[in-house]
């Protein structure tokens, strides 16, 4: 069962979600990776560490146009004979995977959280993380997108050969006019640690203590929906059922009540710490560790202790 993994490397780097997809593919079968743009061959060769045998690089397509990438994927499926196509469920995967599925008439299991089950079904997130569904793909060719941070990758120490891949991608009807980079170094959907805050923080001017704690942990910052709606924080930080769904190793929530719609987006987190003045806050029911206290006092103290810990370890 040979596997093709498509990853977006337009940033010039191989993101963690991409390594996870490669590792996932290699657990299913011999894996070829496809990417496009101008990333260095050395970074691509290192994908061998996560199980890739070969990497195909298309240099002609330099944007993330889902139509062009779909054509490249279809051509690579043809040339490698792959029967399983894997992509991370990142922003590009969300656009490309359904197109590939429709083009190849290959069923798509979207948002896998584990390797395929023994019976071939794929366990995916449903109901915004409130449950899982086991999807049976009825077609011979199968497309799977992988939820970021769902599996622990291990390095196997291999190296992959890199080949240039030329195929007719067709033309693009989408013109990129401008790219605006987001501030902050840790991207929320891939972050292993997330520090999040809600209306309990009272105003945007108070977010310094949230950002300071995040910095000490190398964490991304997030927020509850009302906080993004009122404009205290940018929309892309909004987590929950109608925002981003995340599953970091550690989620620290301060001044968030823990409404069901908020929990839906974060209850895939491995460990949840809740800081709230109200001992009755519903969030404590979903927490592993709880601190009944004032975020304005607890967050700086926690930051101080983290820094002490980091200095010693």
């Amino acid at each position, binding site marked *: 069962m040979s596997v093709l993994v498509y990853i977006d490397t337009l940033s010039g780097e191989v993101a963690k979600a991409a390594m996870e997809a490669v590792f996932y593919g290699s657990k299913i079968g011999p894996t070829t990776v496809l990417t496009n743009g101008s990333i260095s061959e050395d970074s691509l060769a290192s994908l061998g560490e996560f199980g890739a045998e070969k990497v195909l690089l298309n240099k002609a397509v330099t944007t993330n146009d*889902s139509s062009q990438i779909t054509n490249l994927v279809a051509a690579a499926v043809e040339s490698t004979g792959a029967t399983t196509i894997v992509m991370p469920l990142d*922003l590009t995967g969300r656009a490309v995977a359904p197109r590939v599925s429709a083009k190849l008439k290959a069923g798509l299991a979207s948002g896998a959280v584990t390797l395929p089950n023994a019976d071939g079904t794929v366990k995916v997130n449903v109901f*915004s993380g409130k449950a899982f569904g086991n999807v049976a793909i009825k077609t011979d060719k199968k497309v799977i997108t992988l939820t970021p941070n769902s599996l622990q990758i291990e390095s196997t120490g291999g190296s992959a050969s890199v080949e240039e891949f030329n195929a007719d991608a067709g033309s693009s009807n989408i013109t*990129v006019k401008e790219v605006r980079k987001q501030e902050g170094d840790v991207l929320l959907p891939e972050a292993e640690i997330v520090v999040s805050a809600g209306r309990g923080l009272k105003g945007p001017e108070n977010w310094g203590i949230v950002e300071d704690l995040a910095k000490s942990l190398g964490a991304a910052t997030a927020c509850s929906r009302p906080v993004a709606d009122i404009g205290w924080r940018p929309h892309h930080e909004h987590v929950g059922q109608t925002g981003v769904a995340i599953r970091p190793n550690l989620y620290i929530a301060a001044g968030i009540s823990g409404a069901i719609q908020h929990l839906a987006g974060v209850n895939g987190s491995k460990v949840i710490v809740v800081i709230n003045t109200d001992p009755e806050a519903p969030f404590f029911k979903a927490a592993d560790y709880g601190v009944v206290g004032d975020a304005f006092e607890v967050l700086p103290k*926690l930051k101080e202790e983290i820094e002490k*810990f980091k200095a010693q370890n």
Partner: protein
Amino acid sequence: MKFLVCISKAPDTTTKIEFTDGNTKFNEAGVQYIVNPYDEWYALVRALELKESLGGEVTTITVGPAADESIIRKALAIGADKAVRVNAEANDAYFTAFQIAEYAKSGGFDMILCGKETINYNGSQVGGMIAELMGLPYVSLATKLEMNGATATIDREMKGGVEVVEVNTPFVLSAAKGMAEQRIPNMRGIMAARTKPLEVVEPVACDDLTTFQSYELPPAKSDCKYVDPDNMAELVDLLHNEAKVI
């Protein structure tokens, strides 16, 4: 300008998720359905705003059984001009996209708008599939949409930022937060919705590519361990030695 907005139903966000029939079916008993928030708040409202400033018509399309007509009327109450329902259960994204693409092919739509994802199956699948089936450009996860003649300028989420793109009609788009503000239907809208046309069409033949074989709930959380607010050293110790996450 002619807009087609894909509207799906979703269980109310406070619904307690349970399964029946040996975990093979979602338990619908007592479940309140709403319009999928991304479809209503962002895709539909932005289409209505553009229609109001540029003229044209907003049609909604839903693949679903007759029971879905209550959420379709809600979309009409918010301001859509007319609605289409494809009379079939939407169990598979490809089947759903195929039905919508078949209907849209002869409709002369300038733009087909979907939500980012449904909040029950969260596949983010249908929009991209419609685009591929119709051979159209697909702008996913749009957070802002402006029209200038037949050219759209769209902000879309990209890895680590925002990308501003231009595309000519016709195209398919999926709408994310930021596109528009939620609208509450008023009494006049609700009254008008009762008499707006709701066309029912039968599905065309198409095989499902996937099925949900079973469901499971996440394992129950163990009890919360409380740490004194004055003892953050203990919390750090627990996170390091017990939870092993730092």
